[in-house]
């Protein structure tokens, strides 16, 4: 997996690239652990570059969501393909995560 990080106004935007399965997810978990240590409160995770996600990938995102929630941070997701959306629905995670079509909408949601 590859990770790109940039800041838009006061929001950290993380672009994930590659398959998120049980082999690659530990790498993503380590990457996010570094960001959460900084206590970032506004994070958008853009899944546009993720063509495949398994339950291990979901678990990683759930962990990030919960850790941020504990210190008063907020996570928003965007850029999901149809398959990924379907997996979120089946796992009933679509009602728990804040999900947006595009990165711009997700970033804008922080200031609305």
């Amino acid at each position: 997996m590859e990770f790109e990080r940039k800041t838009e106004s006061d929001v950290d935007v993380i672009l994930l690239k590659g398959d998120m399965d049980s082999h690659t997810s530990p790498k993503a978990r380590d990457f996010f652990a570094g960001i959460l240590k900084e206590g970032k409160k506004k994070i958008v995770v853009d899944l546009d570059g993720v063509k495949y996600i398994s339950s291990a990938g979901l678990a990683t995102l759930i962990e990030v969501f919960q850790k941020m929630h504990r210190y008063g941070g907020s996570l928003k997701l965007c850029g999901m393909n149809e398959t990924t959306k379907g997996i979120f629905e089946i796992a009933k995670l679509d009602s728990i995560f804040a999900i947006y079509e595009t990165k711009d909408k997700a970033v804008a949601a922080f200031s609305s």
Partner: protein
Amino acid sequence: MKTSDGLIYLKIPSNKFFLGLVRKVITELAEKMDYSQEDIAKIELAVDEACTNVIQYAYTSEEKMSFKGGKDEAIEIKVNINPKRIIINISDKGKEFDFGSYKLPDITAHFKEMQIHGLGLYIIKNFMDEVNYERSSDGVNTLKLVKYIKK
């Protein structure tokens, strides 16, 4: 495709490194059949989750992180296809799985408690048409996954 059944056989070490390879083989097969893109994605995910469960829970040897897997720690994937359906048998010689007492988790409650174990099987059961587990007398676990082609 011919009307007779086709059999594809794949054997991998118990190591997550090979999950991508398994997914490629399974999706390429499914793409040659008449499955929708949505169903191909479901089959791909179900097989990944099943193999991941074997690696994480059935086999516990520390050697599993090597490319060879531990002693006898292999996963056998037998795929039987015909124009109506795909059957994928995933076998291992690891610990027995108490499939009978497995209940689909309350995902929302799981989420709150940060317990996400069991999500893989939940996905498998939701995405495949038939899911059966058997353990043979000589200690081979087999998870059978079936997906029919929608007409």
